[in-house]
């Protein structure tokens, strides 16, 4: 049987923590290796820490360090793909897909997690998700991993139906919070929102963080 390996592909340092930390933790608990392919360093982010400690030129160094810490906290490998924040949608899709395909064929994962193109709000999310789907499509049938796509847009359930996978990651909540907190330059807003209203029933944002939802990509049609 193929050795299980999960590859998570998102464009920004912190997407992995907000979007999939619980799912990642559940795989790590089972001893399954997880690799994060991080598209950019989020160097065009708006958040500079609160109070501000970064600037446009130093932000990438901070975020790179935060990414490494988050991946340590989640006990996963990380590879930085070297694209530039906000520009992914202007790269040639085939080129990005080819780049991703070569890495995936090297790692040979059983599961790939990415964003659902068109329903992932941030243009970088949509663009990288599209390239990932293309990359996985181009892997030969016998080696093609399963692909889960994550939607974020407010309307997504109406249009796409109920997600195939809905993980209640409450057992891994502390782990997820610890991962989010490593992203010091980005997460202060979210952390204060959580500390103000720590009750799951009263805080819609917490619901989003608690249930990690994915659609299983169907390559047959």
């Amino acid at each position, binding site marked *: 049987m193929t050795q299980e390996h999960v590859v998570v592909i998102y464009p920004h340092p912190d997407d992995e923590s907000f979007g999939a930390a619980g799912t990642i933790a559940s795989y790590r608990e089972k001893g399954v290796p997880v690799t994060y392919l991080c598209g950019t360093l989020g160097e065009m982010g708006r958040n500079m*820490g609160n109070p501000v400690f970064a600037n446009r030129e130093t932000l990438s160094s901070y975020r790179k360090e935060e990414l490494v810490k988050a991946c340590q906290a989640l006990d996963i490998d990380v590879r930085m793909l*070297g694209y530039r924040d906000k520009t992914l949608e202007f790269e040639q899709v085939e080129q990005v897909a080819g780049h991703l395909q070569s890495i995936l064929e090297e790692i040979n994962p059983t599961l790939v997690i990415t964003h659902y193109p068109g329903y992932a709000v941030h243009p970088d999310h949509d663009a990288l998700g599209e390239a990932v789907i293309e990359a996985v499509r181009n892997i030969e049938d016998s080696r093609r991993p399963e692909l889960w796509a994550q939607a974020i*847009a407010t309307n997504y359930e109406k249009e796409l139906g109920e997600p195939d996978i809905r993980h209640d990651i409450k057992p891994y909540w502390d782990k997820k919070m610890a991962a989010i907190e490593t992203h010091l330059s980005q997460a202060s807003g979210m952390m204060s929102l959580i500390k103000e209203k720590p009750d799951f029933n009263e805080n819609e944002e917490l619901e989003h963080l608690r249930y990690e939802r994915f659609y299983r990509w169907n390559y047959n049609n």
Partner: protein
Amino acid sequence: MEVIVKEKVQQIIDQFAGKDVYVHLETTNGAYASHFDENAYNVGAFIRNAKVKYEHGKIVGSGNAYRVGLKLDLGWLYAEGVTDYELDDQNRLLMAGHDREGRLMVALEISETPFSHESVGQS
């Protein structure tokens, strides 16, 4: 970065006048503006490493937000809402405007050497 002291920033702007300089100019309200508020618009623009030469430049305004204008050979370069500045260790003038939560809304940076344009080496 520190809160702008107009006279200090003016002095630095003067030092770059008449030289070939690289600028980073940016404004943004974030990629999630219309996600969190459906009535909001996502608006932003940036240019990185535009090479320009200005005959003179000024920082104008009072209190806590300033405007910076650079008079170019064939036009103007303008930023509004700048609140903080720094002359970094590479002698680059970094200026930015932040909102109450510390998020960047506008940035104007001037340097005699190009700003980095790559993230990290591709794996």
